[in-house]
């Protein structure tokens, strides 16, 4: 029998809330974290809104030894990990170092750090480039720094599948736990709201150019106009259910099923892979569509992928047959950080019996979805499905379930 894998700790860094408590009350209250960019002057760029995390002062949370070698994204990930471990009541110093691992996702790495070093290189010369540039920009840097800071020497790695990566990393964490590692730090944080990172994102042509924070990112709305990027994500402490029980840990619930697929070649006319990913995740969880109490949609915010997603949900569940929500309407799309944040929201929905709302959206009637709009909806939630897609054709679906 395959081992059950549970989540025992959550650490959240979101544009509308720092820490689980702030994030969850903000999300249930419909608090918008999207606004005009403050980290640089966006006036000369075609897209000027983002979901920035306000009030994060790295010096308040991390020793000075870490700061010269880390990008903002890694500082956020390290602090979210500290919070998640504390939430899990897990003290790495008291655990066997080879029995703990770190598997996160990343879609960008440390762009702001890299931009600074490129500016030094071209502005002042190669001798001014930090030795830490060697790793501070890299996709795997969050996993590496979390592993070093917490003395975790078991399986480590990074999963890079853009927006789908956050679920794929958690799936890989579950795999490693089933192979025998007791605890894996997983999830993802992405953050690249700096001119260099912004230009890279603009090149996709998918960013919303609206200047209205409540009208810029409108998934499943007839007026959808692209997406607003955000920074942040969530770190999850995943553990073997028996090991967690043995140390007396409380569990938010189980990572019950996962499915991932690739889309066919664009223009092929074949069906996109999202429906299949959902079916694979349900089968992996041993769940029927009727067992799912809420779907956290990917919510691309563009007509074509919105239609694809609505059709996939409807194909599996039926028309308006399951509540669907997109809390990321309050944060923007956090790349690989988005799905772990949705997983956190799903576990909190299970805990509190309430579905967080989708805000700002006037749903297009063509989509046969029961969207949870504007207000949180009280409902018993035992199982939730989280969907995530990544640029390039990645689809991923994950079923989470209340602890048995």
């Amino acid at each position: 029998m395959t081992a059950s894998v549970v989540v025992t700790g959550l650490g959240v860094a979101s544009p509308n809330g720092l820490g689980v408590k702030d994030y969850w009350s903000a999300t249930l209250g419909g608090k918008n974290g999207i606004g005009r960019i403050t980290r640089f002057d966006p006036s000369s760029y075609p897209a000027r809104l983002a979901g920035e995390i306000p009030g994060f002062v790295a010096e308040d949370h991390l020793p000075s030894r870490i700061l010269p070698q880390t990008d903002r994204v890694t500082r956020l990930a390290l602090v979210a990990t500290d919070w998640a471990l504390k939430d899990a009541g897990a003290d790495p110093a008291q655990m066997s170092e080879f029995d703990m691992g770190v598997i996160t996702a990343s879609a960008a790495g440390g762009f702001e750090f890299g931009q600074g070093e490129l500016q030094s290189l071209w502005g002042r010369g190669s001798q001014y480039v930090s030795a830490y540039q060697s790793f501070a920009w890299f996709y795997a840097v969050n996993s590496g720094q979390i592993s070093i800071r917490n003395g975790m020497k078991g399986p480590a790695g990074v999963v890079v599948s853009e927006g789908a990566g956050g679920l794929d990393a958690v799936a890989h964490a579950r795999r490693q736990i089933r192979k025998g590692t007791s605890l894996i730090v997983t999830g993802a944080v992405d953050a690249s709201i700096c001119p260099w990172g912004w230009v890279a994102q603009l090149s996709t042509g998918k960013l919303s150019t609206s200047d209205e924070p409540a009208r810029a990112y409108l998934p499943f709305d007839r007026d959808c106009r692209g997406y607003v990027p955000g920074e942040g994500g969530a770190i999850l402490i995943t553990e073997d259910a028996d090991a967690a029980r043995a140390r007396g840990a409380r569990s938010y619930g189980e990572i019950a099923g996962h499915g991932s697929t690739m889309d066919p070649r664009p223009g092929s006319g074949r069906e996109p892979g999202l429906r299949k990913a959902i079916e694979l995740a349900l089968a992996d969880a041993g769940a029927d569509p009727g067992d799912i109490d809420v779907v956290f949609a990917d919510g691309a915010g563009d007509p074509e992928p919105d239609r694809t997603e609505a059709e996939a949900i409807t194909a599996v569940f039926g028309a308006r047959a399951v509540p669907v929500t997109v809390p990321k309407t309050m944060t923007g799309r956090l790349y690989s950080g988005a799905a772990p944040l949705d997983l956190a929201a799903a576990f909190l929905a299970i805990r509190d019996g309430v579905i967080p709302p989708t805000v700002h959206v006037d749903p297009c009637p063509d989509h046969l979805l029961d969207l949870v709009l504007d207000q949180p909806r009280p409902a018993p939630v035992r199982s939730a499905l989280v969907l995530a897609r990544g640029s390039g054709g990645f689809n991923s679906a994950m079923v989470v379930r209340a602890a048995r």
Partner: protein
Amino acid sequence: MATKAFTLDDLKRILKEAAGVAEGVDLDGDILDTEFEVLGYESLALLEAGSLIERECGISLDEEAVNDAHTPRTFIDVVNMQLAPATAA
């Protein structure tokens, strides 16, 4: 141009700027012969510190000698060794 000798205070200042200070480490203690590893500085931190010293002092450090310097005392000696000919010239 006269160059002053490179001191422990110089090294501490450079280390703080290049790599910060690890939790639980007191650079103001008696650290002259404490291994860098114990002080929380790995080879990359020392590479970055060396790079700062090179820029500040206008010298070029011998990479192998820097790699072999495991304590503040030996590191300071390596820097002063390079400063000496610069002073003489």
